[in-house]
């Protein structure tokens, strides 16, 4: 009975076991069928989708950055070049503690405080997955020393990168400009221009000057390389490559040697000089003193240098030639005289008797001439040669501000000259309309009086003055200043000269111009305000001096410049072209706080003319503005 029971239990147990085993078997079949269904889904139905993903995983399109075009002066001297150097870069997101890692790096290769500051500044300006340079221009030895210890520095990488260099340093820095790392504003501009693809891999962009304005020519076309990469992003092999197209080389109109002469002629003064070939509009020298070293900007400027440049009272970053707006002072007088001739308000012979001041009817205020006792009888020729203020006070009031405005605009006062680098300011050629708009105020006749001698609301940039002077030199035909001379196509090596602008009609009558030009020639002759500037030149120079008041004088106060602080001294101006009968160079010079045009700005112009026309380099340069000449302006 018990055995039977046991047997029956055993049988039952076996039956249960086997049926459960069968059930398990069934579940296993279902499970495997499920897996097979999943595999079929992935490998048959979705295969193309996953294939695409796998290809996208392994193939990376790496941009190949083109070489940036060179910048050369008109004679082929290199102003901006490229070289390749090793940099050590850090991707902050891949480094746990960047500061500590840099400390450790410092035990291996030199990391200066400046490097650190610059890196920190870059870090603030960039996304933390970007690779940023901590050290640039590593020596072979430093590269080797780092390579051996590489494993200690995850997130650090040595890269061979092309660098921009400006071999001339500060010389012509405002014309050449510089490149810098692409910032958020640049990114936006690139995006709106639809150039994103071409800037993949590029991390520098032209910021100012030629570098900024001709970015498109200089950048070139980015190539690409299809690379097979592994999961760590390391390139395994190249699959295909399309070569980049280097940027075009630019030959600019500057003459480096002339530029150097002009910059040196400024000695320690601040100011600007623009020298133009009046026949072509080519700018041969563009000076804004002080300059800056554009090389500082290439790898990202460190905060110390930046502060020094940015906060310097001398404002070295300000391009005075294009952006400095100064009262033109007496240099405006030839243009005023031309307006009067054109409107027949003055004949050449008409003379005034100059008592040394000018008064408006029924107004007590005396507008003073620079010469206390006046110049005696003054006609138009003499008014320019000795720079008589009284003559122009009256002339201007008779013309009226709106007529003056109409005539000055012909010479490009009050609007941009259209020079081919950015940042130019307009200056100001005032009118009744302008004053109404700007100050909601009507124009007073008194306002016109000071405009007559280039003061008051009248403002011009040195470039505008140079362009107006060049127009005089070019027989009154408008001159369009430019810095680009030709473009060398990187594909064909062909030189494409910049197209000459269409010939325009003269804006003044030739007989009027002849009168003014002869007066300007006499300015640089004995008896003229720039007699010393023109002395023994060996060529005839047509010139006009000018002084721009920095502070207004009180009525009756004797102007004593020795007692006025240096910063409040007048700006010295000088415009000129030479040779007077066949002008090859027209120029405007401004010396900030230089005193009188004849004493500081004039000698600078003379040096530049001497070099350009005669090939003369001054052996010894007397200190500018030292022995005060007798002529005054």
């Amino acid at each position, binding site marked *: 009975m018990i055995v039977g029971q046991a047997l029956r*239990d055993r049988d039952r147990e076996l039956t249960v076991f086997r049926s459960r085993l069968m059930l398990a078997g069934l579940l296993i079949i279902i499970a495997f069928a499920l897996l097979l269904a*999943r595999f079929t889904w992935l490998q*048959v139905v979705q295969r193309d989708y996953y294939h695409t993903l*796998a290809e996208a995983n392994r193939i990376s399109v790496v941009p190949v950055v083109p070489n940036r075009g060179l910048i050369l002066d008109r004679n082929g001297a290199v102003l901006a070049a490229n070289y390749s150097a090793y940099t050590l870069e850090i991707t902050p997101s891949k480094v746990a503690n960047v500061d500590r890692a840099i400390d450790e790096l410092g035990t291996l290769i030199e990391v200066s405080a400046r490097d650190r500051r610059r890196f920190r500044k870059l870090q603030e300006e960039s996304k933390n997955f970007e690779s940023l340079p901590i050290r640039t221009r590593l020596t072979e030895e430093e590269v080797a020393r780092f390579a051996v210890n590489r494993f200690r520095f995850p997130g650090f990488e040595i890269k061979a990168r092309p660098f921009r260099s400006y071999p001339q340093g500060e010389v012509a820095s405002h014309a050449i400009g510089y490149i810098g790392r692409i910032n958020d504003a640049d990114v936006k501009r690139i995006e709106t221009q639809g150039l994103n693809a071409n800037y993949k891999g590029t991390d520098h962009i032209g910021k100012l000057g030629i570098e900024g304005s001709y970015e498109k020519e200089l950048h070139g076309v980015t190539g690409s390389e299809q690379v097979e990469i592994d999961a760590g992003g390391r390139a395994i092999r190249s699959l295909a490559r399309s070569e980049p197209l280097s940027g075009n080389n630019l030959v600019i109109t500057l003459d480096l040697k002339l530029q150097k002469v002009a910059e040196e002629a400024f000695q320690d003064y601040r100011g600007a000089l623009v020298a133009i070939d009046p026949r072509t509009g080519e700018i041969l020298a563009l000076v804004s003193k002080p300059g800056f070293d554009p090389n500082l900007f290439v790898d990202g400027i460190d905060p110390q240098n930046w502060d020094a440049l940015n906060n310097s009272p001398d404002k070295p970053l300000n391009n005075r030639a294009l952006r400095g707006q100064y009262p033109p002072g007496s240099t405006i007088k030839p243009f005023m005289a031309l307006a009067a001739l054109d409107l027949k308000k003055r004949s050449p012979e008409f003379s005034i008797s100059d008592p040394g001041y000018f008064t408006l009817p029924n107004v007590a205020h005396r507008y003073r001439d620079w010469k206390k006792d006046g110049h005696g009888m003054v006609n138009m020729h003499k008014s320019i040669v000795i720079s008589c203020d009284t003559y122009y006070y009256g002339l201007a009031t008779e013309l009226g501000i709106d007529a003056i405005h109409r005539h000055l605009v012909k010479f490009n006062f009050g609007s941009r000259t259209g020079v081919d680098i950015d940042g130019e300011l307009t200056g100001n050629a005032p009118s009744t309309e302008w004053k109404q708009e700007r100050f909601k105020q009507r124009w007073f006749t008194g306002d016109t009086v000071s405009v007559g001698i280039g003061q008051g609301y009248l403002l011009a940039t040195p470039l505008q003055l140079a362009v107006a002077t060049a127009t005089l030199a070019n027989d009154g035909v408008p001159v369009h200043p430019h810095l680009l001379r030709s473009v060398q196509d990187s594909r064909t090596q062909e030189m494409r000269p910049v197209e000459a602008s269409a010939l325009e009609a003269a804006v003044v009558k030739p007989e009027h111009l002849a009168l003014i030009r002869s007066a300007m020639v006499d300015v640089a002759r004995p008896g003229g305000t720039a007699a010393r500037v023109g002395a023994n030149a060996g060529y005839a120079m047509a010139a006009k001096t000018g002084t721009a008041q920095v502070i207004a004088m009180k009525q009756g106060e004797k102007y004593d410049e020795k007692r006025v602080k240096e910063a409040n001294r007048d700006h010295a101006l000088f415009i000129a072209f030479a040779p007077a009968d066949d002008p090859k160079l027209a120029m405007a010079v401004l010396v900030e706080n230089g005193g009188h045009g004849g004493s500081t700005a004039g000698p600078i112009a003379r040096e530049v003319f001497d070099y350009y026309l005669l090939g003369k380099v001054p052996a010894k340069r007397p200190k500018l503005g030292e022995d005060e000449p007798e002529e005054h302006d």
Partner: protein
Amino acid sequence: MISRIFDFLSRRIDGPLMAALALTIALGIVVVYSASGGSSLERAVGQGRNLAVALLALWIFAHIHPQLLMRLALPVYVVGLGLLIGVALFGEIRNGARRWLSLGFTTVQPSEVMKIAVPLVLAWYFHRREEGLRMRDFALAAVLLVLPVALIVRQPDLGTALLVFASGFFVIFLAGLSWRVLGAMVFAGAASLPFLWSVLHPYQRQRILTLLNPMEDPLGSGYHIIQSTIAIGSGGILGKGWLNGTQAQLDFVPERSTDFILAVFGEEFGLVGNLLLIALYVLIIARGFMIAASASTVFSRLAAGAITLTFFTYAFVNMGMVSGILPVVGVPLPLISYGGTALLSMLVAFGILMSISTHKQLVSS
């Protein structure tokens, strides 16, 4: 002479099972070679060495009589449990989990031992209670099962805990636990899901969330799954060819020679390869079921059945996880993945299966 040696070696070896195992393991070494970069024999040779040790263990266990195994079951279980408690008290922490116990000369992972000890001790228990199983017996069995599982969960090692639980549960299931209780367990399990969720470690929860939506964190927790499904899917029907899987060879598949080796295999051998692998697994499981069905004692039956089902569980969980239908748990692909411990414990289990297969005549006669 040669035939005598062969006879000596194969006396306790189950022919069909051995053949299926050998094919699968050979395939595994081929895949490990590819998964380790396809240029160095280091891992393939290493796996060969692991295999030699594991085969020796299989051969030895095949010679241990099931009766002896049954008698050893309880002592091994008790020692294993002791070691687990030791781990909980003095264990070494590696990768944030307390799983290893230092014995002075070596470190052991007692949870590995329990993968075999738990089904054996339960089989032994039901064997002793052969006559008339009552609810109380099942309750006691449940205690034997839950104790080690709870200790392993605490380590924490949810993957191993689940596998140990499964291996023991299979014994209870095969022993004939009533459907009512089974149903109640399933219900209780479902009801306790929210509670389980709350005791899961954050990384474990993340794995489950990742399964549901891997794209949520494609470079973090979703990366494994995304890359392995891309590998498998891009393999297509015929695969990209041995050593030619781009996902595998370029390192996109993580842990490609261990837990995620199926992604390498599926990419290089395609759907056809996957079918072949499943077929081999089905052969092994079918043979295991035949051995279990014809085993002569309750212990043998339950042990053989549970071992086979556990093997299936490994295969299914791994394939499911790599193909993205199960959460990521650290389970290797049985007989294929690189790694000595997993292969050793797997072949020890198959040694026991062979012992059961080749010793049944003696018992029944």
